[in-house]
């Protein structure tokens, strides 16, 4: 029984009608971490934005259904959908340097979902924020709550954003390349932290990344995307050991390996790219 279901999701550019997502379908079970991998422009982030109803204005959903638990999100009127999503889902954004409002203190940015959307009192929300900052291992939470974003490091800000995402105990979290903008040394810590938080809160998670190493660390299932089309959907062990689709195989052998740093990297062959593109576009008719 899946918790998040996407059926035949079509997303197009307004006006030209160019297809950005081509009949994407995927199912995520409750409490699972589902990875979305692919090169840039493959449409991985677009899926997350479509679920959260924050697609750019130039883009529209042209067809398909997104179901969260029992709720068909695509059938809800715009305002109700925004409200429902605000209560049940959260986003861990890609770039912690731009995702916090520079003019507001950290505390408010963690608690505003609690106070503004869920109607908590300020004292209760503040206590919860301190608890969460403790959980993401920020020392002196009280001081950090009073700080402005520019007073914190990138790693600290990403922890704050993780705390904010978990604040209202959402049922679904979409992590959109949450470690890409960070230092390599910080990446690992943050990744560990997200995995630990996800396990502790038993949150369903959609994990968008271009990094197969990250996928191997946190995900149970993976969808591989190319040109807005899911080329393979497999559990993580299958994908890493016996990838089914030629594109997945090529992507895997293009990943640098720590255990054999001298092995030469093989770029994805043009023939595989062409064949996969043809397969994706075959969906258009």
């Amino acid at each position, binding site marked *: 029984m899946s918790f998040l279901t996407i059926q035949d999701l079509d997303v197009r550019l307004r006006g030209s009608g160019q297809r950005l997502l081509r009949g994407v379908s995927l199912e995520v079970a409750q409490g699972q971490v589902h990875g979305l991998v692919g090169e840039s422009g493959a449409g991985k982030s677009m899926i997350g934005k479509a679920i959260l*109803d924050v697609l750019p204005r130039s883009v529209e959903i042209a067809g398909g259904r997104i179901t969260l638990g029992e709720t068909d999100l695509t059938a809800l009127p715009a305002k109700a959908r*925004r409200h429902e*999503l605000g209560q049940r889902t959260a*986003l861990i*954004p*890609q770039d912690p340097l731009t*995702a916090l409002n520079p003019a*507001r203190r950290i505390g408010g940015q963690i608690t505003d979902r609690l106070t503004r959307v869920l109607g908590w009192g300020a004292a209760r929300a503040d206590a919860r924020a301190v608890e969460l900052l403790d959980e993401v291992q920020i020392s002196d939470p009280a001081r950090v709550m009073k700080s402005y974003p520019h007073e914190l490091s990138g790693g600290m800000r990403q922890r704050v954003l993780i705390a904010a995402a978990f604040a209202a105990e959402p049922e679904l979290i979409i992590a959109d390349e949450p470690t890409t903008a960070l230092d390599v040394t910080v990446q690992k810590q943050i990744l560990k932290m997200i995995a630990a938080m996800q396990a502790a809160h038993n949150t369903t998670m959609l994990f968008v990344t271009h990094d197969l190493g990250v996928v191997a660390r946190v995900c149970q299932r993976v969808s591989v995307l190319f040109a807005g089309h899911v080329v393979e959907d497999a559990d993580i062990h299958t994908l890493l050991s016996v990838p089914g689709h030629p594109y997945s195989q090529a992507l895997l052998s293009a990943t640098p390996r720590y255990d054999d740093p001298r092995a030469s990297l093989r770029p994805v062959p043009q023939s595989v790219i062409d064949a996969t593109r043809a397969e994706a576009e075959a969906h258009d008719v």
Partner: protein
Amino acid sequence: MLLLRILSRLLSIAVTLFGVALVVFVVIRLIPGNPIAMMLPPGATDDDIARLTALYGFDKSIPEQFVIWLGGVLQGDFGTSISLRQDVLGLVLGRLPGTLELAGLALFFAVLIGVALAIFGTIRRGKKTETGIDIWNGLTLSTPDFLWGLALILLFGVVLQWFGISGRVSPQLDLPFVTQFYLLESLARFRLDLTADLLAHMWMPALALALPLSAMIAQVLKVSLKEVMTLDYTLLARTKGYTERQVIFREALRNAALPTLALTGVQLTHLIGGTVIVERLFSYGGLGSMAIDAVINRDLPLIQGIVLTFAVIFVAINLIVDLLYTVLNPRLRHG
């Protein structure tokens, strides 16, 4: 460190005011027109002219006159008005509140209209409403304040005859005021009948002054708002369940306000400059209409006093804008 910044700021203010005083003093003495000649009846003897000239110190060289005048100003003596034969400081302080209240009301209108149009245009961005707002802004921006004044007089004063078009307050009213800040004092005394009468006189000149500024605020704020609405933290705010309006008010407005604030500060000085002609148009008893009389009468001490007062207002506005900037942008607070 902070003390040093305050000191350097005060020094720059002093230099600015000194510069203004010097330029005005010299320029109004170089342009043609003799204030003494305007005061004497026809047929005055050369002796009379010489005595009066000496009385007002106009027989001395310009640098000498400047030093004497500046020495007086530093002790709070701005000289005596030639045409009104009264103390300049008293005259200016008597008229200043009227102008400040008018400019304040105009600023209030401009911000209200400008911010409302900017927010409305941002919510409806890319739609016909936004185009309509752009056209309206183009129209209000390209029409100068005195033309708006004339249009309002024509419409509400002449055609519809809903409002009086002259003065600061109805002359038949018995005014209990002890200060010249009529509007504020009427509110403080809770004499709302007087407030209503004052506003009925003030709203047209205030709106005429406000419209061009409101268009500038609307355009600049709308551009910044639209930009901020594409940033990551507004996207994050949307995922929190905020409506578009909540995103604007809680997340975007404060960050988008900075460029608008700087612009409003600069343009507010233009607005106050505009009071000179708009006050005249509505026979509003403020500093601006006094300035025009002073220039016509070649009343040099009064002109100097009024211009210096305007300069002090402009410097004060700049100071306030800088302070607000630090309040709105926490990153400016240290360093």
